[in-house]
């Protein structure tokens, strides 16, 4: 019958752990379009860094480098513009 006692204690401890929640809960920030865009911006910056590094390493000819850099910079600029627009709030202009 010892096992019954152990089982009862185990159940009580488990119920206490599961249902006794003192204090505030951690909910974390809501995922918004702006936070998503910041992630995209980081990814594009990382792509730019990689491109720059590969160019310096001599893997990419100058013409290719300029073209790809320009394309990535345009992408980053578009993202930054939308982040700026969202941060200013709806309806406002620069």
């Amino acid at each position, binding site marked *: 019958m010892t096992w019954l006692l152990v089982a009862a204690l185990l159940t009580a401890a488990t119920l206490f752990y599961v249902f006794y929640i003192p204090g505030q809960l951690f909910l974390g920030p809501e995922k918004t379009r702006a936070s998503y865009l910041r992630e995209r911006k980081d990814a594009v910056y990382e*792509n730019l860094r990689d491109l720059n590094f590969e160019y310096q390493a001599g893997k990419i000819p100058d013409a290719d480098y300029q073209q790809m*850099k320009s394309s990535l910079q345009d992408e980053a600029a578009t993202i930054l*513009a939308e982040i700026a627009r969202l941060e200013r709030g709806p309806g406002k202009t620069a």
Partner: protein
Amino acid sequence: MAELGSFALLLALALSVYSFLAGLVALIYQKSATQPASAARTLPESAGFASLLRRGSERLAETSRRAGIASFGAVLLASIILVICAFHDDFSIAYIFHHSNRDLPGPYKFAVLWSGQEGSLLFWSLLLTGYAFVLRLRYKTDARLFAYASVVLAGVQIFFLSLLNFAAHPFAIMQGNIPADGNGLNPLLQYPEMVIHPPMLYLGYVGFTVPFAFALGALIMKYPGEKWIHITRRWTMVTWAFLTCGIFLGAHWAYSVLGWGGYWGWDPVENASLMPWLTGTAFLHSVMMQEKRGMLKVWNMWLVFATFWLAILGTFLTRSGIISSVHAFAQSSIGDWFAWFLVLTLGVFLFFFIKNHKSLESEHKLESLASRESSFLFNNLLFVLLCFTVLWGTWFPKISELVQGNKVTVGAPFYNRVAIPVALLLLILTAVGPLLAWRKTSLESLKRNFFWPTIGAIAVAIFLIATPESWGSVFGLRPWRDISYFYSLMAISLSVLVILAVASEFYRGGRVISRHTGQGMFGSMVQLTHRNTRRYGGYIVHFGAVVVIIGLAGAAFNQDREKEMGYGDKMSIGPYTLLCRSYTEDESPNYFSQWAMIEVFKNGKAIGSMTPVRRFYKASQQTSTIPDIRSTLNEDLYLVFEGVNQDNGHPIIKAHLNALVMWIWMGVWIMLIGTGLALVPNAQAPVRAPATARLERAQPAPVATGD
């Protein structure tokens, strides 16, 4: 003890059910509380109710998380109890009686936990709840996404714990009198690697549930962006490393224990572990396209699902008895449970995929065939093609039985016909991929990057053809004599191409760092690796993979001979001469053994002695061979005690000369070291923001997906 174990399993199931249901209800309420403005939300009392609802659902979600955490404790307790029962020789428990005996050495008594059907399912559940335990503790990374993943994991937990409680109970009690001793552990499993091979394999199998849980969670909640991939990247790499380790430990075990001189036989159970590895490897590559370019989102979602699904399918294969294999567990009814679970998971995934697939639109299109993206795409297609071939070959006996009424099995030639050309194409992509630029690569760039590695690979091919055959092993390769020689030459030359491509990546990167910091080349390459551990760790994994491929290519040069050897008898194989010095028998509490002492000469010079053994296990009444293997970089001399001539008592010895096998095991170590490096966090690099100058010119516009 058995009663407490049973109770712990029941408690774990109850907690998992609660975690799933409470989590599900909480997520549904949270979603409805955050719906876009409706008429009801404009009323103050309704807003108050929504706030109350939200707070309630948040507390409910927290109890769900805690119940999930507690379920790990309950499963851990059940596992500990089973191991204690094994050490106490508690044969009142049927599982212990069937898989252990009093004289079984201690480490194997520990391994009893995963040696049979019920115990291994308990071990599977322990790993699953263990992974989920870590995930639920780390929920602060992204509380919402983790809540979804936790519910998915709780659903998978319910399945495995239901199996344990209702179909394959590890604490089932023996009927009638308690036997004095157990049946013992299968002799093939009484080998040190068998103590770690199943846990590694299971860690890999089970681990893929975590990326799947995040992927399904992200799909259900239409998670914007690629953060779920960042979160699961390390999980996936760790899991992949465990599965790789498990597969190769299995291959090494087969090589060292089964006594047939090989390491891979395209057995259904081997295939079962290979399939999720192939799709998992494809995912590790294609995921980079999603992170960097926002492409292949649908493909990646399916790859994650396929990897999880194939891991479950592999478990179904091993446990249902549907396909015969030397590794499979006994035939049982739990196959039906797995079949239904496979259907259910496919149904759930398909439902949410059809419902939410619009959230997975690609942000960019493929711009050129000569680009890093296309190399990843082809790499993925090849991995999936290979996976499909293995799947088809594995299921073909069953399919032919259903269609024709008789089982037609497919052997190594079927798999090799596809696997070898695909592996060679993958080698080309492994060499080419890192040298291609993202988006597109110009002809000038191709010439600049490929010239020297290609020259090096061609030079090695010419060298291998030109060297005399008397050098042995892979030297003096004549590809026109046999297709297997041609494949070996291609494999080795392309491996050299990969190695040179990887070396040029390290050299070029190191040169840049050296120019900026003034450090030496080696220090610069170390710093380079530390700055981008994932990329350069990945290259080391590639290097390890080609070392494995070189080892596999050696199979074309294998030889074997078999001879009855009395005292003083000789046998020759390659440069080796074997001389039988003696043969005898021995007894230990667990087994009887017969062994021969063979003196080995290489090119006429004595280099040592070898003792192949054959054992007869008392408890299980089964025999097993322990081959003696002498490994060098060039070849393995592999001796097996095949049996005894009943007329004169002379041992029958089989000798294998296997070329380059050691390269396989070395390659795996390199792959694991590379994976370990890829898991190290990057050192901080200077940050630039070159796009700001264009900010003012840009027009605000919608960017890709995201709610």
